[in-house]
């Protein structure tokens, strides 16, 4: 197998959402002495294709999530092979559905799209208290905290999280993004969030812009 075929195998495994296949292909690349950074770039462009197809309604959420998992497996192998300081992650996003809300499909789409864009995503799940966002963000060295809410009654809890971080004196350490069906750009401004997105693809673009890496 030549080098081109090894790269092709990595791409094919990712397009098949094959987590162990991606890890294997990435390992073979590293063992062959290929440029790990080139492998990461290939995975990034491939997963952007998958994200575009999701936006077009040709690929569905489970495939997006499986692709994100597969990408993470490949990224772990390839970044370990990079020289120190050459990690290619765009940053870390701590994401969750705010306290009182258990509707998580939007959060999963945003999480998967951000993973696809090259972020490390720490998913706290649903019904997440402000303190849990604060603790997880500190523990994981988050760059961005992403807050989701589906209901008009849970939307104000996004403000509670920001106020909680303010009260702890750590608000300025993070960029904060908000979203979810009842959320609007005006509401995001009103509560002092740094970014708002209508859907997953836009969320990934805004997240990249917030960390100074517009795509």
């Amino acid at each position, binding site marked *: 197998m030549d080098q081109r075929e090894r790269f092709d195998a990595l791409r094919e495994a990712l397009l098949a959402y094959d987590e162990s296949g991606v890890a294997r292909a990435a390992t073979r690349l590293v063992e062959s002495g290929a440029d790990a950074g080139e492998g990461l770039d290939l995975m990034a462009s491939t997963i952007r294709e998958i994200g575009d197809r999701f936006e077009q309604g040709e690929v569905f*959420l489970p495939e997006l999530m499986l692709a994100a998992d597969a990408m993470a497996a490949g990224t772990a192998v390839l970044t370990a092979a990079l020289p120190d300081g050459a990690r290619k992650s765009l940053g870390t996003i701590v994401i969750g559905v705010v306290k009182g809300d258990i509707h998580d499909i939007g959060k999963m789409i945003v999480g998967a799209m951000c993973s696809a864009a090259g972020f490390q995503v720490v998913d706290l799940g649903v019904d997440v208290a402000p303190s849990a966002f604060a603790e997880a963000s500190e523990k994981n060295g988050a760059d961005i905290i992403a807050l989701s809410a589906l209901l008009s009654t849970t939307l104000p809890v996004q403000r509670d999280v920001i106020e909680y971080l303010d009260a702890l004196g750590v608000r300025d350490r993070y960029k904060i993004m908000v979203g979810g069906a009842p959320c609007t750009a005006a509401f995001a401004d009103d509560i002092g969030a740094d970014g708002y997105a209508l859907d997953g693809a836009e969320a990934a673009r805004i997240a990249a812009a917030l960390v100074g890496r517009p795509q």
Partner: protein
Amino acid sequence: MNVSVQEIWRRAETGPTCPVKTFDLKVLFPTVRDLVKRHEISYDPEAVVPSDDGLIDRVYEAGAELLSEVGVLCTDSEKLIRFTREEIEDTVSLAPRQVTVGEGREAVTISHRDVEDDSVPFIMAGPHFASVSEDIQLKVYEAYGREPAVDSLVLGTATTVDGLEVKPGSVLEMRAAKQNVAAVREGFRRAGRPGTCIVGSEATSAAAIIGCCGPRYYRRSDILDISIGVQLKVDHKTLCVVDHCRDYGCHLTVDGTAFIGGFFGGPEGAAVGAVAETLASYLVLRGEMTSLWAPEVNYGPGMSGRRSLWANALAHAACARHMPYPVLGWTPQQCYAGPCTDMYLHEIAASTVASVVCGSSATHGAGRRGVERDYFGGPLDARFLREVAVAATRLDRPAANRIVKALLERYEDKIRGKAAPTGKTFQECNDTDTLQPTREYVDLYEKVKEDLEALGLDLRVAASHVS
């Protein structure tokens, strides 16, 4: 062999263990994909209202097989509630064919409707869980109460109590929920229709829902709408609320959501998933009626796009042909456009025609995807809904399909382009002193009705059912 409620509870704690993510990605999605392929179900953008009974029956078959193959996941115990195919059919055959809701002169019987049924559909109207400003709450409900087209009122969401912001699970949520139901009662009393059925609840916490079960709030003649969790899931809270509601004696409608683009896959999988969720909603929650919907994940929770209409119509038809349940049909509850726009009325018309011809009742709620405060048109929406729904009972499916496609051509590019018009709020669509719609909204309504008549919808028939 039918399955008792107690047996469901037992299975929710003792069934096979399955982590949520495994269920979503490794169990549900591949099974749906396989069933869609095996039953040769494919999306046809030209047949939005399906005339192919073979396809409709295959969708039902695939939905029933999906439920028997994967079951329902209890997300608290992470155990699967499994059913055999025989248990599914035997238990669902016990579901009621009709139910009477409301009281006194306002009592209405909701019956199962068949595909191309000429019976007048049950009309549910109201803000439909969209936020309603506290200062206009009572006026909104009185306005709907004065409109004879309204068989039942689907309430809005109160997000403040005396100006204090409601937080989920807090005492303010319970108080807001109680005040909201009480406002509907008072509004309809003022309108002279005190026995009208209310459909709720907008509250999320079990305490708030259960706290509203009482003679001053939800009566036994009202309907509580309880959702089975998205994509064949249920949790302890839902089982508790349903058990309490059954004990209390109010009516229950149970609904499932099959997102297009979510864990069921594309529109074909969403149609299959919606059938499975409708079956599961009776097996697990024992509602007396059901509602199902298949919104798009990509364009916000609207349901008037082509793929969503196709999946909804197919699933409604499958349930109508194979289940005794009355299907209330949430199809047009949330429009992309705001009220007082052509697109808003076109969305209501397209969704209503598609769902009513396929065996559903009719409902409409709000614009702006139901998520922006006060973006519902009020009683004129309800009148329009009833007129279109009644006219749709005179259509066969090919005629309905022609009308729906013609309407889609008028607005679907605005969904794709995320360019649906903002429209106007309730306060802008109505005179809040007289509670009458504005001249502008009435003129638009008349213009759109002329347009619909030209497309072949006989709205004159409907007028006699409204006033």
